[in-house]
């Protein structure tokens, strides 16, 4: 638990959610771009996983981490901040994404982006000896 909390401190804070870019030929809302603080663990075009940390008790330090989406590093800005283009919003967490799109105060502090993608979530199916 302690190691996990320490590791979390190395991850950049999510500072803003913006709606721009994406594929103009695709109807509907533009994709979400998350703006993160500077970090040297996010390389160009890296696939990332987006989590929402739901506090387990009021004021408590423990939280449950929901995987809510997959994205990629679309830009490292000149000021060092990282842009994450959201590629996939998990349908099981539509409400959280709506809150992110509305830029509700307080929601972004629970959003954590990690520079890795769990097996099976990247859209890559790997079968060995099957």
């Amino acid at each position, binding site marked *: 638990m302690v190691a996990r909390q320490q590791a979390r401190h190395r991850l950049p804070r999510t*500072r*803003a959610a*913006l709606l*721009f*870019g*994406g*594929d*103009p030929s*695709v109807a509907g809302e533009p*994709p979400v771009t998350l*703006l993160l603080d*500077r*970090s*040297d663990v*996010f*390389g*160009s*075009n890296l*696939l990332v996983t987006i989590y929402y940390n739901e506090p387990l008790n009021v004021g408590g330090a423990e939280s449950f981490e929901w995987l809510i989406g*997959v994205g990629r590093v*679309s*830009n*490292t*800005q*000149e*000021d*060092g*901040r*990282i*842009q994450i*283009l959201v*590629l*996939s919003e998990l349908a099981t967490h539509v409400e959280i994404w709506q809150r992110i799109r509305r*830029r*509700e*105060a*307080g929601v*972004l*502090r629970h959003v954590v982006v990690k520079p890795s993608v769990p097996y099976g979530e*990247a*859209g*890559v*199916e*790997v*079968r*060995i*000896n*099957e």
Partner: protein
Amino acid sequence: MSDVSTRTELARVVHVVDSSGFEAVISRGARDELKPGQRFLVFAYGPEVMDPDSGENLGRIELVRGRGEIIHLQDSMATIRSVEKRSGRPSKRVIRDTSMLGIATGRGQVIEEDWAAEEVLPFRDISVGDLAKPV
């Protein structure tokens, strides 16, 4: 990575080749030691963005127009073509058959299949004066 101290001076878009927005010309060329195939990210500065929780001004957001690859070099200019693919969940199937039977039958190989054909997109809203940086 995000080491801003290593940034070189930004190039500018000086010409958009056609209205479809697949190709553009930037203000760097062979004399800047660019090479064919090098990739640039094209962007423009957008509005200032505020942190909704703290109210802190985060500065001006960079609006990404897309990424392009050098296809033609002149002394002081380079033509880049978009390499941006349709956004979406990556879609690739990898099948590994490393069993003895697979090796014996010649099937002991890695097979990669794209689930959907990739489609290159034009730069989005690119215009003269936009900025470009190597990526």
